[in-house]
């Protein structure tokens, strides 16, 4: 079943299934089922997106200002891209094409396939997102756990203060602030010798500022989350018992506290990871990164239907996979949780 549930026989309606005997087989069985579930999920996402897309005011050929295309040109464009057919027909054609992994031509980048545009822009997003995630996990959890262990100490206040600031200043402001300090001002102060590139993509130096910007809010969030759940765990009976039994501090903390406090953090980490690798429009715009987040927003605001649909499909698959992984991780962290 989805995710995690107990093996409590009282609710064992699913016992009618033949349950594989070994743990490995059961795991495989579970994964296959979840992967199959993606088909209806994606179908549903396509349908709703398709409907929403056509409900949104404005057509792909409306221009953001100035001289509009004439009716004749607009009609010709509709024919060229098949938009002259009835909507239900367009929908079926689209589904048929998607079944063959043909996602069509972008309206905006003329004569480029949507697949090509996506493959061009995703790597930048992935790089930055994955790097940011690599910072968020240890920093966020570490800061949170330490803050909780030393509640009301200086480090606790720093963690809370950082968490608050990180969330009250929007990304784009943090980004431009970093640019002003480490790029523009550093350039002026050092006479042009030492400064970070303000934006762009290609060299390693380009990654520093956007990764920091991207990581601030999630790190703050995870730190607060980890602090809160660690405080909860510290009050649990088994931890008190462990302390009372005189177990070594490190052992208690690693074996009991950290592990258990990770449980609520895990689902948040999943959401954050999914968000990071599907791209942040703001960070990509502020740092001029040719990523998928920006191209998606441009697609929506220019009503580039095939780009919108394909990106949404990509996102829904990514999210479904991330959620599956998270659910699998639950079974590792919390042995009481079993897959059914």
């Amino acid at each position: 079943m989805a995710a995690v549930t107990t093996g409590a026989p009282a609710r064992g309606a699913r016992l009618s299934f033949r349950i594989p005997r070994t743990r490995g087989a059961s795991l495989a069985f579970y994964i296959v089922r979840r992967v199959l579930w993606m088909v209806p999920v994606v179908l549903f996402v396509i349908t709703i997106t398709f409907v929403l897309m056509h409900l949104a005011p404005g057509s792909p050929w409306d221009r953001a200002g100035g001289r509009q295309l004439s009716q004749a040109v607009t009609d010709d464009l509709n024919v060229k891209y098949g938009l002259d057919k009835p909507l239900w027909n367009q929908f079926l054609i689209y589904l048929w094409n998607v079944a063959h992994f043909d996602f069509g031509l972008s309206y905006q980048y003329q004569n480029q396939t949507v697949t090509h545009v996506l493959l061009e822009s995703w790597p930048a997003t992935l790089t930055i997102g994955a790097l940011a995630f690599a910072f968020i996990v240890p920093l966020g959890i570490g800061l949170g756990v330490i803050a909780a262990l030393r509640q009301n100490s200086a480090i606790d206040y720093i963690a809370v203060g950082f968490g608050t600031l990180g969330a009250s200043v929007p990304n784009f402001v943090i980004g431009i602030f970093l640019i002003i300090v480490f790029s523009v001002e550093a350039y002026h102060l050092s006479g042009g010798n030492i400064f970070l590139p303000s934006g762009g993509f290609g060299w390693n130096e380009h990654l520093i500022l956007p990764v920091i910007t991207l990581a601030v809010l999630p790190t703050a969030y995870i730190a607060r989350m980890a602090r809160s759940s660690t405080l909860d765990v510290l009050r649990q009976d088994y931890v008190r018992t462990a302390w009372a039994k005189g177990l070594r501090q490190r052992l208690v903390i690693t074996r009991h506290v950290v592990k258990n406090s990770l449980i609520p953090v895990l689902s948040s980490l999943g959401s954050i990871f999914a968000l990071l690798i599907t791209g942040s429009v703001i960070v990509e715009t502020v740092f001029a990164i040719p990523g998928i987040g920006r191209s998606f927003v441009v697609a929506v605001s220019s009503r580039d239907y095939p780009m919108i649909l394909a990106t949404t499909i990509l996102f829904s698959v990514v999210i479904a996979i991330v959620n599956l992984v998270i659910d699998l991780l639950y079974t590792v962290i919390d042995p009481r949780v079993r897959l059914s």
Partner: protein
Amino acid sequence: MAAAVTDQLEEIDWENPDQVGLWQDAWQRFRRNRIAVIGLVLVTAIALAAILARLVFALHLPILQDYLQQDPANADLSPFHQGHILGTDELGRDILSRLLYGAGISLTIGLLTQLIYLVIGATVGLTAGYFGGRVDNLLMRFVDVWYAFPDLLFLLVVVSVFGASLLTIFVAIGLIYWVDLARLIRGQVLSIKEKEYVEGARATGSSPLKIILRHLVPNSLGPVIVALTFGIPRAIFLEATLSFLGAGIVPPTPSWGVMIQQGYESIFAHPMEVALPAAAIAITMLSFGFIGDGLRDSLDPRMRR
């Protein structure tokens, strides 16, 4: 006055320890938590200032374009210039009055949307987590769908269908981010529900609703409060995005989100136009964070003496 109320409550506490005791006791502990009280005082002060600003300025001062300030030769937007305590923005409007007026709008949006998230998120999360099985699977796949959904497209359509209004703002924002909370609560419930006390309650035949309310809700409170606290600024910023789509607060009426967004454009020239609303949001958030921590500690049954 607070003392009088507590005295009263204390009496009731003896008569009905089970029902009122939890809340009475919680309030006692909350009051002793100095930081939480500071948070409460700050939030109250901000709320009062916002109400007062609305009564006093009635949107006159916040949108008044002081042309003296706009004489390009003497343009001075800095604080304390010509009686503008926090200075003026590029159109010569007093920033302090805009901040105070915007407080009402942004706080309402920040808080009400959290309520919407909580209602939807908790319902879905608790149901999925508690019942598990098919229910869980179905709900979580629905969450997958919702998550994959393009926010911007969704907002555009909501805006065009419902038109720009305060209701649109709540519907649009409220329907977007509840999924995070649903997943979070579900995860919490999954890890708690195998605990002895829950198993015990189940064994004694307690109804699911009772188990959820009595055990699961209080025990999963901590992370939920954190999530809600962080949700406040997110909603405030989202409102600014909405105004881009035509459904937010229509200018010249100020909101914090819009002030930050406009300030960003001229951050090189006038950094205060970003810094001030950001500071306002930070103070608000910190206050709610303090209150949240205080609430969690005081509601935690294990902390009861």
